[in-house]
């Protein structure tokens, strides 16, 4: 495997991304970024099958518009990792800020610990291949999966009494599904969101995702492979249909 190592210490994000692009164009299969500290837009609009290992804490919009690469982040991530991402993968060995996986259309974002507000907001899907997945090991703040139009948000609540304690889950959701470990109190649901029974066939469907998540972070998947989840989906695919009348 052709590996390129870049020391990002004190480097602005534009030259850093230029170096990454040059390495990809040069046929690098793995790029290791050391001493990353707050550089935004890493992998922004990047194409290809490259694997990028980020040692440190990347800044906002990590992997935005990204199409293909896999990023392994050995640290936390900032605002909106996976923003409007098309395909590829982000594996974050830590927590992430607000608007994680915002408007994501495909690929996977795995976050070991917690995320901020508006996680998975306006995630959407198109076709079967372009189905985005956001998995959060810990918990998420309010407005999780708000305006969601497709894809899957999974919250495992590892190390928490309750996986979700913040309100506004799935307000305005009109497609896709939010699956949360354990019970979810009714008052946490946003307008337009509805609870559904999590079935064996649901488990069968998401089991490969759970296994993959556990493999990345060294958890035993057996602990999560049961039907003790709550599934939240849209009460209607036309949440605003009854709000308007024509002139």
């Amino acid at each position: 495997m052709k590996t390129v190592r870049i020391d990002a210490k004190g480097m602005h994000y534009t030259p850093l991304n230029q170096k990454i692009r040059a390495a990809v164009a040069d046929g690098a299969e793995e790029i290791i970024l050391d001493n990353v500290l707050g550089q935004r837009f890493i992998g922004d609009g990047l194409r290809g099958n490259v694997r990028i290992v980020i040692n440190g804490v990347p800044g906002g919009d990590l992997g935005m518009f990204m199409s293909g690469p896999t990023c392994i982040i050995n640290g936390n991530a900032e605002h909106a990792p996976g923003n409007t991402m098309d395909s590829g993968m982000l594996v974050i060995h830590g927590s992430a800020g607000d608007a994680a996986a915002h408007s994501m259309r495909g690929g996977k974002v795995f976050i070991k610990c917690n995320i901020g507000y508006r996680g998975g907001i306006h995630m959407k899907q198109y076709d079967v291949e372009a189905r985005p997945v956001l998995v959060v090991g810990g918990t998420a703040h309010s407005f999780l999966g708000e305006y969601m139009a497709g894809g899957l948000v999974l919250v495992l609540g590892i190390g928490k009494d309750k996986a979700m304690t913040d309100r506004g889950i799935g307000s305005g959701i009109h497609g896709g599904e939010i699956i949360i470990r354990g019970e979810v109190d009714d008052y946490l649901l946003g307008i337009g969101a509805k609870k559904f029974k999590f079935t064996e066939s649901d488990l069968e469907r998401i089991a490969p995702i759970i296994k993959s998540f556990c493999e990345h972070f060294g958890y035993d998947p057996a602990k999560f492979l049961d039907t003790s989840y709550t599934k939240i989906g849209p009460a209607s695919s036309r949440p605003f249909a009854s709000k308007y009348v024509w002139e």
Partner: protein
Amino acid sequence: MTLGSVPPKFKVSIDRDECMDCGRCIENCSYGVYRREGDRILVESRKCTACLRCVAMCPRDAITLTEKPIDYRSHPLWTREVREDIINQARSGKIILSGMGNARDLPVIYDRLLLDACQVTNPSIDPLREPMELRTYIGKKPSKLKFKKTESGDVELETKLAPNLKLDTPIMIGHMSFGAISLNSHLSMARAVKETGTFMGTGEGGLHKALYPYQDRMIVQVASGRFGVNIDYLERGAAIEIKIGQGAKPGIGGHLPGEKVNEEVSRTRMIPLGSDAISPAPHHDIYSIEDLVQLIRSLKEATEWKKPVFVKIAAVHNVAPIAAGIARSSADAVVIDGFRGGTGAAPKVFRDHVGIPIEVAIASVDQKLREQGVRNEISIIASGGIRSSADLAKSIALGADAVYIGTAALVAMGCRVCGNCYRNLCPWGIATQEPHLMDRLDPERGAFQVANLIKGWTLELSELMGAAGINSIESLRGNRDRLRGYMLDEGMLKILDVLQAGA
């Protein structure tokens, strides 16, 4: 039904002496006003929207259409419209939606601004003889230029220039999405802007494959729903525009009903077939001016700083400081959309009551940017109710670099401003995805008409400039001395920084 029905809005009648019974009215009306019973064409006026398709297609001019054939008791406060809206809401309990731009009879500031011309002391310029420079560059301009001498004695520019769009005329076509309007409308406009050396916006509907040949003339939009946005789309566009707000409905999002999401629309927006396409009110990754900077830079970074990025906002009360913030945010142009801006559908209360006129917005934004010494950092594109070359010239004299037209381009393709865009039944083949209706708009013919409109306005602008003794668009820009106010109050003249006619 204690409310009964409200009177029909239009009365359609056929002059039976003229009618030759060809049935073109029946064929052309997509709203079902006409039908044949036996040997007679019957008319159901209640279904009429005054799109005038039947009138335009009748070979004998046999059709007459009257607006508001029934009078209510007249009342200055309780107008017919007010009464009918109340009846509608008493029935439904819902928000009233409407199409096209602000329909209230409010004074138009453009009509109270008058242009100047030369007499005697400085001669006017004849555009037939003298070159008129209309070329406009949209984007950041350097505050100073640095040169260096090469060994061979040549002079080379040392300053790195930011990417700009080069327009042959300061008229662009604004963002109307594929989905809201048909592919043939987009094709017509794309060919027209290519021919006339200008640009058009995609709207938030993605870029259809059929438009790829015109991609270097397209400004791709990134709005809160991020529909159709991926790296491929961003790279194809000549420029990228972030839509924060829209003049027809400032502060709220957009909503394309599932009925309009057919296979082509679904593929282009990258959303499932038949699902509602909902754009949230804010961008949920922008909750502050710092976040806007981040989105702008993320778009530039994704496209390797090769493309100008515009930010479109609705003209609202604090438009000037907002634009000043945008000027410092790495954006290359700010688009200001006035309260008369059009739309496929907007809540009527927003369309008619929220926002401010584009004329005052241009003046106050230009003023603020000049005061702060950042006018060169950002171009101003004005939109929302630009109807003619006079509006265009006045916009530039108030301080705009260029304008976006919307409704005017639609009218050039056949639109009669009936305002029923949301029904997917547009008989002119514009605001519809129905193949049999869309086929009525021939892209070649449509392109010819839209290009003609742009050419006509460009000629008129040259004449207006020549008459004023100006031979370059740069000398007209922000040149408020060439405007005078007529029947405008002192406060308005002060905001516009324009003198009273006679002064």
